[in-house]
C-alpha cells in the first residue's frame, strides 16, 4: 500500500518535471505572439519587415526592421566564414591527427571556451580586436568585421565538439578500406572520413548559426549599433538581438510593442533554424 503510494508520487513528480519545460516554452510562445502580433497587424507586416527606417522617437515614428535583419544576416555570414573552416579543421585534427597528450590539453580548452560568459568575449573584443581593426581600417573599429571575428570565435566550441563527435562516429572500416586501397592517411581522412561525417558537420554549422544569430551581450559592445542599412564591411550595424536589448529599458507604448515584435521575428528565425536542424538530423538517421 505504502509502496504503491510512493510509486504514484514519484510518477507525478517525474511528469511534473517533464511538464515544466513544456509549459515554459508554451508560455514564451504565448507571450511573444501575444505581444508582437497586434503591433505587426496594426503597422503592417510588409512595412515592418521591409521598412528601411527605424526611428521610434520621430513623430510619426517608423519601425522598419530590415536594417536589423540584414545586420544579423551579415554578421552571421561573417561568423560562418571565419568560424566554420577553423572549426571543422580543428575537429578533424582532434579526431584523427592529434596525439593523446595534446588531445588531453586541447579538449578541456575547447570545453572551457563554451563555458566563458558571452559578456567576457565582448570585453575581450572591445579591448583587443576593436583597436586592431581601428588601426587597420581606420574609423571606429566597431564594424561588421569585428563582430564577425568575435562571433567566429564564439561559435567554435559548438562546431568543434559536434563535428568531432560525428567524425569519430564514422565506422573505422571506411578508413581502413581507404588505406587498404593505397590512399595516404591524409587523403583517407579528407576524402573518405570527412565526407562520411557530412550530416553531423552540417548540423554543427546550423547550431553555430543559431548561436551567432542569438548572441547579444558580446555583439552589443563591438558593432556600433547603428540602426541603418548595412553600409559596408568597415561600417557598423545593428542586429535583431541588440536592437531589443539596447532600447527595451526606456521603451514605452508602441515602441515597446515594436521591440517585442522584433523578438517575434528573431524567434521565428531561430525556429526555422531548429526545423532545418531536425530535418538534417532525421536524414542522417534514415
Amino acid at each position, binding site marked *: 500500500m505504502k509502496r504503491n503510494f510512493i510509486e504514484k508520487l514519484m510518477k507525478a513528480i517525474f511528469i511534473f518535471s517533464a511538464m515544466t519545460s513544456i509549459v515554459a516554452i508554451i508560455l514564451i510562445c504565448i507571450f511573444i505572439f501575444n505581444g508582437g502580433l497586434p503591433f505587426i497587424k496594426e503597422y503592417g507586416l510588409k512595412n515592418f519587415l521591409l521598412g528601411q527606417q*527605424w*526611428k*521610434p*522617437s*520621430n*513623430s*510619426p515614428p517608423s519601425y522598419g526592421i530590415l536594417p536589423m535583419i540584414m545586420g544579423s544576416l551579415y554578421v552571421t555570414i561573417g561568423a560562418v566564414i571565419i568560424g566554420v573552416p577553423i572549426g571543422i579543421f580543428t575537429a578533424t585534427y582532434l579526431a584523427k591527427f592529434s596525439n593523446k597528450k595534446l588531445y588531453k590539453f586541447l579538449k578541456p580548452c575547447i570545453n572551457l571556451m563554451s563555458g566563458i560568459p558571452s559578456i567576457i568575449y565582448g570585453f575581450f573584443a*572591445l579591448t*583587443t580586436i*576593436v*583597436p*586592431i581593426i*581601428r*588601426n587597420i581600417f*581606420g*574609423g*571606429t*573599429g*566597431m564594424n561588421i568585421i569585428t563582430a564577425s571575428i568575435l562571433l567566429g570565435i564564439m561559435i567554435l566550441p559548438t562546431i568543434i565538439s559536434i563535428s568531432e563527435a560525428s567524425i569519430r562516429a564514422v565506422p573505422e572500416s571506411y578508413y581502413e578500406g581507404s588505406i587498404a586501397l593505397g590512399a595516404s592517411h591524409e587523403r583517407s581522412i579528407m576524402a573518405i572520413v570527412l565526407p562520411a561525417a557530412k550530416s553531423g558537420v552540417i548540423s554543427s554549422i546550423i547550431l553555430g548559426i543559431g548561436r551567432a544569430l542569438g548572441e547579444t551581450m558580446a555583439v*552589443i*559592445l563591438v558593432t*556600433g*549599433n*547603428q*540602426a*541603418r542599412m548595412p*553600409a559596408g564591411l568597415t*561600417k*557598423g550595424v*545593428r542586429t535583431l538581438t541588440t536592437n531589443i*536589448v*539596447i*532600447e*527595451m*529599458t*526606456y*521603451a*514605452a*507604448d508602441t*515602441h*515597446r510593442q515594436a521591440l517585442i515584435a522584433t523578438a517575434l521575428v528573431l524567434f521565428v528565425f531561430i525556429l526555422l533554424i531548429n526545423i532545418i536542424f531536425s530535418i538534417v538530423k532525421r536524414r542522417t538517421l534514415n
Partner: protein
Amino acid sequence: MKKIISLTLVVIMSFIFATGCSKSSTSKDGVEGFDTSNGINVVSREDGSGTRGAFVEIVGVLEKDENGNEVDKTYEEAIIQNSTDAVMTTVAGDKYSIGYISLGSLSDTVKALKIDGVEASFENVQDGSYKISRPFNIAYKKDLSPLGEDFINFILSTEGQKIVVDEGYVQVSTDLSDYNSSKEKGNLTVAGSTSVTPVMEKLAEKYEELNPGTSIEIQSTGSSAGMQSTMEGSADIGMASRDLKDSEMEKLNHKPIAIDGIAVIVNTGNTIEDISFDKIKAIYTGDSTTWDSIEK
C-alpha cells in the same frame, strides 16, 4: 620531417600574431599629436533614452517639419551605446570620438567641452548660462501612501535638496523649507531611471536614518519601466530622467526633484576645448564629419 615543418609553421603564425599586437600598441601610444584631418567618431545613446531625448531636443537635432512631425536627425553613422558608462568607455578609448553624458557622472577619464565658452559646471547649470540641461522627475499615483508623501516632502526640503547638490546636480528651486518628519513607518518601493538612481539611493539612505522603522527599496530599471511599474502599482514612486509621456501623465502625478546638465565629452587627447552650440548640432546631424571643420 613533417613535424619540423608543422612546428615551424606554428612558430611563424604565433610570431605574426605577436607582431600584429605589438604594432598596434606602438602606433596607439607612439602618435602623440591630435590629427584634426581625422573623421569625428560620433557616439550617441539609444532611441528612447532620457539623456538622448533631452539632448536632441535642446541641441536641435530633433527637427519639426511644417506638418508638426518630429524627426530625430541623429547622424546615422553614430555609434549607439546603451549606458552612460559605455559612452564614457568608448570616448576614453577612441581619440577622435565625441559623446554626451549626464554631468553628475562626469569623471577624469574624459574631457567635457565648454559650450560657447561656458564651462559645463554645476554653477553654470544653475544660473542657466550652460544651455544643455534637463529635469529629473519622480512620478506617483494620486492615492500615494502618507509615507510616500512624507518621502517626497523630504526630497523637496532643504535637507533633501542639499543631497541633490552634493551629488553634483542642481536643485529645483532655491526657495526651500526645512523637513519635518511626520513619523511614518513602513516600506516604500522606488523604481525607474538608471540616471536618477544614484542620487535617489543617497536620499533614501538619509531618510531611513531620520525615520527609524522605514525601509526604501530602489530598483534601477530605466525610466519607462519605472513609470510602467508605478502605474501597475508594483512601485510606489517612479523615477524618470525625461519628461513624462502623455499616456503616463494621465495616470500619474509628477514633480521635478533635480536638474542635471548634459556634458559633451571628448577624449583627453583632443586639443579642442571649446565648441559652439551650432557645431554640436552640425556634428550630431552629420553635417560636420572631420575635426578641422570644428577647430576653425
